């Protein structure tokens, strides 16, 4: 901590911040043996400007991680969602260790799989069954296959800008490695647009297998949007009318809004829910849960993976869910998020900036509205990161139960210093 505070002082004086020689050296090594060095959402492109960000870390605990150069950060990305109870949570880690000491990935399924499924079916009101895998995309794929198996139809309706993993059907046209057939049966409609859904259902009558959506709209590079009043009721009615399977992709928001699934928070009932990320507090696991009416169909779909029966992550998930319940985590996360966000908006205002918060307080999306090119926001996030509050600029952040008042106070101090730096550099103008 001393190092960070010293650096902060230096930054305020000289407009400088953390530098990352070890991260850079490691990236150079990585580039020689790993295409792109670091791929996917952990890669450098979301880090603008990249020199403000570390690329490798080797320690994490609670709400903090340390990069390979020894800088400590309060983490608002939480591994992009999986961390919800804090890194190295003793309860979860002990559950994993205890199970792994008995068996983890083996030749047969472990009893803990049944125990976890029973617990999920108790916890999640719509769940009459559960199916486990590793990543979110494993279960969004299974959900879509189940919808097709149940209906004998081809088309899937999804929300424009919605993310359901990187399987070809889920990606936008034009990305490398895709062919037009991949998206031939995916219809994208705008969020909160019941008429567009109605039109898509009518134009493809008898050919729509499923509708998949996150419980609220949390795209990247755009303000997040909550469901309009009555939206989910109208969607549910339309889907029932057309016998279309209703899938909620709760991979990102799951257990952060409501322990019974985010649909419970918004008051509606889908046919299936996809969970992952927070479910195991960092241990690799995902789940598809669903209603009785789809039990036969999901049971007929062949879908499996080498590590999907790993018992350790299942034990960790069971402990995570019980711990989330004990803490009443969704309420705690909301309260912590509100405290942080109200403070940040106020700090921004004191420097003459308008910081817009959208989405849910436990998974907020922020944007400085004073610059339509987003560059000012990018530089502010970078200045915060260089001072020890790890923010990426165009993805929603995540709040964990490990973010304490102490972390919030430190973060607000960092935000204040970062706004000063941005003001000093760009004045009242935009950054581009």
């Amino acid at each position, binding site marked *: 901590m001393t190092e960070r505070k010293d650096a902060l002082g230096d930054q305020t004086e000289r407009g400088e911040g953390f530098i990352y020689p070890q991260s850079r050296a490691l990236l150079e090594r990585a580039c020689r043996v790993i295409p792109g060095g670091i791929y996917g959402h952990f890669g450098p492109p979301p880090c603008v400007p990249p020199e403000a960000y570390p690329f490798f870390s080797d320690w994490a605990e609670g709400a903090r991680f340390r990069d390979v150069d020894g800088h400590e950060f309060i983490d608002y990305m939480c591994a992009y969602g999986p961390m919800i109870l804090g890194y190295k949570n003793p309860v979860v880690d002990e559950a994993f260790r205890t199970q792994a000491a008995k068996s983890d990935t083996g030749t047969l399924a472990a009893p803990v799989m049944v125990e976890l499924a029973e617990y999920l079916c108790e916890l999640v009101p719509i769940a009459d069954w559960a199916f486990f895998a590793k990543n979110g995309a494993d279960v969004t794929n299974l959900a879509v296959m189940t919808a097709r198996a149940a209906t004998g139809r081809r088309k899937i309706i999804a929300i424009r800008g919605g993310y359901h993993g990187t399987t070809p059907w889920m990606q936008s046209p*034009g990305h490398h490695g895709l062919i037009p057939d991949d998206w031939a049966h995916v219809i994208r409609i705008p969020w909160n647009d019941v008429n567009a859904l109605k039109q898509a259902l009518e134009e493809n009558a008898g050919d729509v297998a499923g509708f998949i959506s996150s419980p609220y709209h949390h795209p990247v590079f755009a303000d997040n949007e909550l469901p309009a009043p009555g939206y989910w009721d109208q969607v549910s009615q339309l889907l029932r009318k057309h016998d279309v399977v209703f899938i909620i992709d709760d991979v990102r928001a799951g257990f952060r809004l409501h322990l019974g699934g985010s649909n419970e928070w918004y008051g509606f009932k889908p046919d299936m829910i996809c969970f992952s990320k927070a479910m195991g507090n960092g241990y690799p696991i995902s789940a598809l849960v669903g209603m009785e009416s789809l039990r036969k169909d999901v049971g007929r779909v062949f879908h499996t993976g080498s590590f999907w029966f790993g018992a350790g992550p299942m034990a960790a998930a069971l402990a995570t869910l019980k711990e989330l319940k004990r803490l009443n985590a969704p309420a705690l996360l909301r309260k912590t998020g509100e405290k942080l966000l109200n403070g940040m908006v106020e700090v921004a205002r004191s420097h003459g900036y308008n910081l817009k918060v959208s989405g849910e307080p436990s998974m907020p999306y922020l944007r400085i509205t004073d610059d339509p090119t987003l560059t000012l926001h990018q530089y502010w996030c970078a200045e915060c990161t260089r001072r020890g509050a790890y923010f990426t600029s165009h993805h929603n952040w995540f709040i964990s139960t490990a973010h304490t008042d102490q972390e919030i106070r430190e973060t607000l101090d960092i935000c204040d210093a970062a706004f000063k730096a941005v003001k000093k550099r760009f004045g009242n103008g935009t950054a*581009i």
Partner: protein
Amino acid sequence: MGADILQARLNLEVVLGLLAEVANSDLLFRERSRAWNETIWFKALGGPAGWIRFAPEGASHGHGKPNHPTISLLLFSAIHLNRMFRNEGLPPIPVKGIGRISFLKKEFTELGTRLQTLTRPGVTFRNREEEHLSTRLMLTAAVKAVPVLAEEEMVCAKLAAATPEGIMEIASLDGGFSGWIKKENGRFTSGLGKPEQVTARMLFRDLEAARIVLTGKEAGFAAIGLGLTRIEGLIPLVDNVSLIMDRLERYLA
């Protein structure tokens, strides 16, 4: 949309531009081309038209019909035009400037061969200037091709439709290249030089860094992390334009 029209427009709107750039910048042609005084008009029946002009003040190009062409070439179709650019098939019909056909056969063909040499993968350059010209040609091709691809290619049209409006600057920080791509009212335009306004930037550390990225020696993600390139501003604009640019290699290898 059709593959032949797309290829024809790339030949007329991109390749002719590259030929003009070689005439203006290449050591072997810079002085020589100033002595030429020719305006060649290429017209494909039922397809696009374009021109290239060589004059003492420099070479230029454009689409449509030029003022006062000295050579007018009629091509039966976009396919015919594309074959001509590949040195295949029937020669074009000169409807004007039949006496100047020797220019096409000698000087213009030599210029084309030089362009091929400069843009050939793995070519060994004689000096740094030649390498930089080659890199500028690659960047120029990418910038000029975006509007054509966005209008004529199915996948690019989908990408274009999903691209936010704005102006993207693409430049090397050593001053070796500057260009822009704009999406406004649903339509793409592009040009060389520094744009007046910018919504997003794709910057290369220098032309050497640009070459490393353009030739695929370093992947785009890595290039950002290693400081070879920088993107900022409205990144979805950069992302989608980059994907459109990536598809150019399918048509102009």
